[in-house]
């Protein structure tokens, strides 16, 4: 078995009396899409937060590329190649679409401490940024203000920014939320492609997407892992059906 790119070991997080994550262990292996599903409030975003460094775990460890990153800041993790998207779009709304991706590319290239050279004239960076837009199909909107594009378009931009980081692993919190049927299809195709570049930890409620993309699925309920396994195993797991899927599928 290949070494996992990213793994958590018995992560526990409490908010007061509420246990949002309890001893959650999972891993992300090269080339795979690992879906994380579970009812609302099950603790998926909390787990993502801890993996990316925005939330400090109460117990447990996070490993990334073979190193223990539990004590590292979000920044350090991002710089070593952890690319994330947010459940609620986090974009510079006053800046143009292109500027948002350029910023990502700059962050990855570490060229932000330049005070006099125009950012948009750095061709390597710009190329990388434009490529990312191209891949999510936003090239036409590059010069619009991010505040002026629609919700669905912003979701794609969110993915584009993560792309600019050329990450070693993606962590995506509901990237399909708000996308239309068409958009979902396109983004699904994109993610399918992306897994070649870096494995994806995918939080998603759209079961069609999950079942078509995921190599493995982990199900959280009340903060605990109630099942991990292949698509087929999860689909037929009675507890998962009751707690999450309902009669669907």
């Amino acid at each position, binding site marked *: 078995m290949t070494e996992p790119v990213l793994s958590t070991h018995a992560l526990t997080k409490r908010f007061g009396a509420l246990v949002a994550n309890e001893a959650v262990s999972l891993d992300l292996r090269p080339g795979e899409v690992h879906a994380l599903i579970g009812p609302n409030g099950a603790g998926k975003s909390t787990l993502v937060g801890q993996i*990316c460094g*925005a939330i400090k775990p109460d117990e447990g460890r996070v490993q990334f590329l073979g190193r223990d990153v539990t004590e590292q*800041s*979000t*920044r*350090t993790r*991002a*710089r070593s190649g952890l*690319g*994330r998207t*947010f459940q609620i779009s*986090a*974009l*510079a*709304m*006053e*800046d*143009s679409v*292109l*500027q*948002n991706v*350029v*910023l*990502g590319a*700059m*962050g*990855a290239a*570490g*060229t*932000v*401490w*330049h*005070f*006099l*050279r*125009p*950012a*948009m004239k*750095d061709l390597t960076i710009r190329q990388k940024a434009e490529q990312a837009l191209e891949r999510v199909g936003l090239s036409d909107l590059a*010069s619009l*203000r991010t505040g002026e594009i629609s919700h669905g378009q912003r979701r794609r931009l969110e993915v584009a*920014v993560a792309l*600019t*980081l050329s990450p070693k692993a993606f962590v995506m919190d509901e990237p399909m939320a708000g996308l239309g049927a068409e958009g979902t299809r396109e983004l699904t195709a994109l993610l399918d492609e992306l897994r070649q570049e870096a494995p994806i930890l995918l939080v998603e409620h759209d079961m069609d997407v999950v079942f078509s993309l995921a190599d493995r699925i982990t199900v959280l309920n009340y903060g605990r892992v109630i099942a991990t396994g292949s698509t087929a195993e999860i689909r037929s797991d009675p507890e998962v059906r009751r707690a999450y899927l309902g009669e669907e599928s």
Partner: protein
Amino acid sequence: MSRESIVNAALFALLIAVPLGALATDEPFIITLATRAVILALAAVGLNIALGIGGLVSLGHAAYFGIGGYAMGILAFHAQSYTPLFEGPFVIEGTKLMPIIWLVAICGGALAAFVIGLLSLRTTGVYFIMITLAFGQMFYFFTISWPAYGGEDGLSIYVRNSFPGLNTLVPIQFYAVCFVLLCAVLWFNARLARAPFGLALNAARQVPHRVEAIGLDPVRLKLVALVISGAVTGLAGALFADLNRFVSPTMFSWQMSGELMVFIILGGTGRLFGPVAGAMLFVLLEYLLGGISDYWLAFLGALLLLVVLYGRGGLVGIFAGKARNHD
């Protein structure tokens, strides 16, 4: 050329034409007034680096302004009274040379901004406004009650400091010095806004968690912005003290901080030339309205109010339309 650059060019032309016109018609006071506007604009441009790009609404910029002022006051005071500034293992003398004074003012402003920034950047929003105000007030009360350099009375410097090759006592020459400095800082500000640092800072204002997720430290970005900003405002403080040949704690007062902010808003937030337009208009209004009635401040208030209510985007906005911050 966009409409905003036309407005900027017009302001720039005014800053050249007015003092030259005054020189031609022998109205030295107009030059003095223009110098005042330019120096205040410089201070506000300093603030605008932090505020316009980084969204750091600092209500304590008087601290850096005052530090610049006192850098000039203290150095020149020791030079004019032939007393050493510091005696110990080595002796530091005062000086009346502008370049040295500027350097000290810039470093003083930057250092103060660094320390204040380290402490206050933990807070955001209104809390940031108030904690910067608190630091400003500390300086204010300290200088008022600390007797060594005149306390509330301040320090008078009898002769303006010198700049090699110039006679700074001639109004137009001193104006030229200030104007060149303003242009240099504006150029720097324009470049900065488009540079990677400016882009990142701008994003750090809007979505700090995103900036963090691409591997940058938003607080460090803001701290650097604040230090640059403090340095520029410190320089302006030194010039302001030289213009008046006088420093006093009022340079540290919260009204001073407030005025710098008013210049920016009046001129147009987020505009390169906003602080310049704001300072020019404010100084002009003060001059024009000053004599008309005992209650002239009420008229000033009414005018300011009209600008806020009906001139969206400040003065520059009125003439140049909506802001665009990308190319």
